[in-house]
């Protein structure tokens, strides 16, 4: 008599999404769709130059345009202590430039007007005199003895270096290298990229002078963090700040930081006493907001001649732009870069890292990357590829020798992470079988004779998802738990609110599935809300694939609390003691008499009409979940490509993805996440990057230069599934949202490298555009993508 879990939309059901109902009708409510009475519109004037002193700003002509209500410059902000704001990495960032501009696109002034066209007219009338300074576009330039000091606004900042950081056992690693049979090295650059969700960032700030309450509609993946930051920056009391993140058109990390536009719109609302809407244009988004990557690798591996990895040394140099505005756990300056090689048994490892300021947009941790894990795993698989080649060993064979075996869990990595579960070898075997690996070498040789270059690339990785436990993880001091609040109404319907914030991941659908699983309430009877800080329990938001691991766990835990209370009510209704109550999906029954039972709906009604003596009425609770550990999904991605030797154009012939993310709440949603992530991987591998010319002009500040693949170029994917439940997660789930973006790029790159192997080329920096591939092919030389480039 238990309910059929799939029929009620429980776990494992490919339940069709609830949020689709409004999106397919064009009834989503994104920030730009919100209209408040009396709303004004804001446009930002951005710097056309990358590094310059501001000699003067003349806004008089802007004020003269009819319909202009307010013009703000750094000077006006400074008078209110708002010209600078703290970043999520304990640095400061200019809100509107005062002394200097430090990157092309930096915010210089803002106009607030009756409509956005007028605001733009007025912006174009503002005259700024710049005195240009030398420009730095990469960390090598930043280190030069005669390099200009970018952050001359800071005390105790004598150079452009932001930090040095290290982790691991240097002595043991040095020893491993001294004793190695073969040392493999590879240097490369993971280029700057940008999450570029289809919806750009924006806010509508509405300060109500009568109540003293500030309401801000805002594109944020973490509205509670924004509330905390606004309370600090604007010095408004936290209970009088309401942040509402409505529907978000994608995030991918881009909507985690707090941007100057938000702060300016808040001040503008306070000053004009009207709501102020700021929606950035796409150029503003690409040129100034949270980007991803831009890290250089110097990688080394100490190898035994039978293929065993004895030691790993990694040095990374990260380019953070003009302000250190990463959003990442405090303890880890370079994020979770030290999760690299977690899927391999590496006895000794040492990671050193340095970060630098340059004249580029601030950021670095964004873009579906789990706090630098994209870099960690890309570097890992590129190093592994080079190592196998240097040993003269087959790529799959080398990985199999070194992958952590099933019986080695729980496994402590050389950098101190504890991985707890996985079937790495099985995943890889499935992928190799599906791509036809055993017959490929022969196929490759025969094709090369006919002038066709085929290649296969492998990428295997496990990554830490679900930041994170309070011992080690915090962002600006706030711990990274997450939360869920569940209220069951008298007819057994329910409302669930969490501290997460979906941007397309389908939480309105999937969280209800967890509740259905735990309580037997049909998922259709559960409404899910996120994003309003007045009603949602506190959470650190959705990014770094942390929501299923942390918020999802909180959902399961709160549902169990509800079930525990319902059990007591059931005992009361059935007039037995609680020890005699059994549970099956959707109902409690008397042990030994299965027909005698009450449904969860019966219990819900009783909570309002017939509770046992001494029990509070109602059926609701909340849960704050502090995860004991991260979760560790595993992926094996294998890609087969064909390279046109005459043009350098390469095409994906086949792509196989095997993902083990533990128990899957909604298989359809999981597969959607994987395919989306693989496409971002494909984009970065083939065409998508931001670069700079020697004057610091950003190449990649619009979609003519920043290339996102269309349906035409994007390959199809063959997906496979392995399920190794997470031993500590309440429902055995692991994160998945970012896995494919983390592990995917190396599969494409390794494939092209394999196709070019006969030329001796070891590396082509992404994106592997046709001209780079052709140059590598014809010269046999590695191709570096470090800026500056020559602008077209």
């Amino acid at each position: 008599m238990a309910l059929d879990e799939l029929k009620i939309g429980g776990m494992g059901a490919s339940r069709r999404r609830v949020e689709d109902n409004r999106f397919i009708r064009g009834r989503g409510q994104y920030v730009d769709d919100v209209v408040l009475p009396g709303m004004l519109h804001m446009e930002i004037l951005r710097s056309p130059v990358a590094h310059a002193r501001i000699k003067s700003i003349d806004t008089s002509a802007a004020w003269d345009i009819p319909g202009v209500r307010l013009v703000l410059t750094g000077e006006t902000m400074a008078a209110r202590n708002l010209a600078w704001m703290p970043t999520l990495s304990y640095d400061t960032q200019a809100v509107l430039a005062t002394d200097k501009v430090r990157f092309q696109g930096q915010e210089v002034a803002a106009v607030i007007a009756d409509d956005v066209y007028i605001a733009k007219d007025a912006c174009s009338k503002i005259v700024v005199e710049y005195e240009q300074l030398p420009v730095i576009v990469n960390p090598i330039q930043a280190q030069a003895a005669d390099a200009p000091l970018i952050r001359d606004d800071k005390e105790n900042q004598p150079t452009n270096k932001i930090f040095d950081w290290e982790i691991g056992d240097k002595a043991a690693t040095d020893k491993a290298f001294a004793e190695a049979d073969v040392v493999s090295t590879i240097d490369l650059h993971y280029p700057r990229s940008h999450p570029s969700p289809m919806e750009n960032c924006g806010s509508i700030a509405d300060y109500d002078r009568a109540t003293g309450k500030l309401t801000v509609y805002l594109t944020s993946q973490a509205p509670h963090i924004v509330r905390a930051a606004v309370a600090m920056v604007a010095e408004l009391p936290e209970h009088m700040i309401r942040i509402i993140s409505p529907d978000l058109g994608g995030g991918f990390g881009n909507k985690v930081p707090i941007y100057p536009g938000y702060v300016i719109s808040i001040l503008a609302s306070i000053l004009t006493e009207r709501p102020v809407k700021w929606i950035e244009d796409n150029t503003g988004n690409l040129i100034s907001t949270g980007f991803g990557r831009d890290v250089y690798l110097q990688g080394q591996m100490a190898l035994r001649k039978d293929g065993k990895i004895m030691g790993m040394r990694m040095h990374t140099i990260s380019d953070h732009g003009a302000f250190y505005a990463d959003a990442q756990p405090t303890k880890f300056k370079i994020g979770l870069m030290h999760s690299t090689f977690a899927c391999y048994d590496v006895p000794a490892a040492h990671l050193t890292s340095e970060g630098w300021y340059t004249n580029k947009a601030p950021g670095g941790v964004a873009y579906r990357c789990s706090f630098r894990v994209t870099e960690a795993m890309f570097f890992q698989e590129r190093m592994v590829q080079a190592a196998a080649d240097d040993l003269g060993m087959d790529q799959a064979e080398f990985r199999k020798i070194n992958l952590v075996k099933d019986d080695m869990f729980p496994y402590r990595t050389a950098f101190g992470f504890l991985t707890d579960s996985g079937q790495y070898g099985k995943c890889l075997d499935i992928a190799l079988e599906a791509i036809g690996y055993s017959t490929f070498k022969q196929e490759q040789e025969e094709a090369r004779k006919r002038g066709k270059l085929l290649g296969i690339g492998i990428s295997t990785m496990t990554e830490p998802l679900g930041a994170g436990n309070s011992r080690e993880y915090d962002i600006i001091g706030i711990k990274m738990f997450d939360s869920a609040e569940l209220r069951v109404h008298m007819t057994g319907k329910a409302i669930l609110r969490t501290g997460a914030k979906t941007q397309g991941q389908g939480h309105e659908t999937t969280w209800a599935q967890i509740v259905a699983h735990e309580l037997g309430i049909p998922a259709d009877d559960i409404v899910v809300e996120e994003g309003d800080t007045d009603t949602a329990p506190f959470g650190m938001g959705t990014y770094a694939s942390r929501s299923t691991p942390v918020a999802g766990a909180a959902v399961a835990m709160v549902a169990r609390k509800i079930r525990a209370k319902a059990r007591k009510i059931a005992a009361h209704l059935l007039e037995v003691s609680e020890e005699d109550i059994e549970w099956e999906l959707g109902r409690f029954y008397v042990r030994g008499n299965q027909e005698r039972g009450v449904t969860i709906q019966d219990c819900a009604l009783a909570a309002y009409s017939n509770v046992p003596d001494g029990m509070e009425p109602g059926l609701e609770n909340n849960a704050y979940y502090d995860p004991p550990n991260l979760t560790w999904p595993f992926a094996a991605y294998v890609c087969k490509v064909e390279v046109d030797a005459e043009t350098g154009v390469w095409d994906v012939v086949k792509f196989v993805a095997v993902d083990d993310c533990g128990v899957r709440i909604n298989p359809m949603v999981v597969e959607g996440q994987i395919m989306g992530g693989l496409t971002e991987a494909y984009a970065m591998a083939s065409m998508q990057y931001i670069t700079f010319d020697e004057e610091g002009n950003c190449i990649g500040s619009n979609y003519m230069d920043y290339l996102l693949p269309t349906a035409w170029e994007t390959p199809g994917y063959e997906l496979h599934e392995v399920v190794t439940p997470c031993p500590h997660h309440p429902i055995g789930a692991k994160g998945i949202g970012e896995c494919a973006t983390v592990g995917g790029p190396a599969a494409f790159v390794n494939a092209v490298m394999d196709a070019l192997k006969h030329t001796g080329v070891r590396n082509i920096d992404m994106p592997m555009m046709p001209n780079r591939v052709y140059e590598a092919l014809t010269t046999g030389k590695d191709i570096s993508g470090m800026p500056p480039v020559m602008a077209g």
Partner: protein
Amino acid sequence: MYPSRFAYEAPKSLEEAIGLLNASGGEAKILAGGQSLVPMLKLRFAAPEQIIDINNIPGLEYHRIDPDGTLRIGALCRHEDLEFSTIIQDTFPTLAGAASLVADPIVRTRGTFVGSVCHADPQGDWAATMIALNGRIVAQGPKGRREIAMKDFVLGPFTNALAFNEIAVEAIIPPATGTARGGYLKLERRVGDFATASVAVALDMDGDKVLRAGCALAGVGGKTIDANAAISVLNGQTLTEASIAAAADAVAEAADPRTDHRGSADYKRHIVKTFVIRILTGIARSEQKAA
């Protein structure tokens, strides 16, 4: 992304449009497809005082082949009219080859062939095909109509030979005297990208002999490259590996590419050469099949 203010007129006849253009003293721009102009207005790269919208002038959407084989394309013939055309596939294969490569499918529903040629973007596909095919533009002004040979039409990047008070009303492409063959290849990293290099080849053939070869290049110079002289080495020849190679070398020489983040000048020149070979080899193979 908001244009500055301008005056707007939507004339219902060419005469009316030309009158407005004439009165504007050079401060007006013609709006046809708008797929180049409107984006420029939004970025404020263009800020004319007046926009003259010719979309309401009837009788300009056509493309047709005259009894003598001449192709005439009206000012409001859209890119997709040519992409889905049932009449140009065999007689104007160079155009048919380029049609589906212009911008993206949505832009192609509005953008116009003639407008694109007038825009004179060095990346522009249609201007290259017009040069390879020895096309002409019909300009109409207050004093009447005149024809401008395509090779005289593009003066420089985004600069054409129209007087300020002339509208381009038609593009004319002469027929092949023998059999028309041709092709268009474009290296773009994704749909809608700027071309790294594009090659238009048009052959007028008599059996397996080339009567006249035409060629033009996009994306490899400050303006569309006229490679007609270069490819004329094929005139009177049959298509052999040697003659194809010679033609490809000559055309590559005519390219004037710049090194930039899309590739080195050498790379772009190499692509030009490769594409010429591929187009000509493809034609030679289909000739053999037909024979």
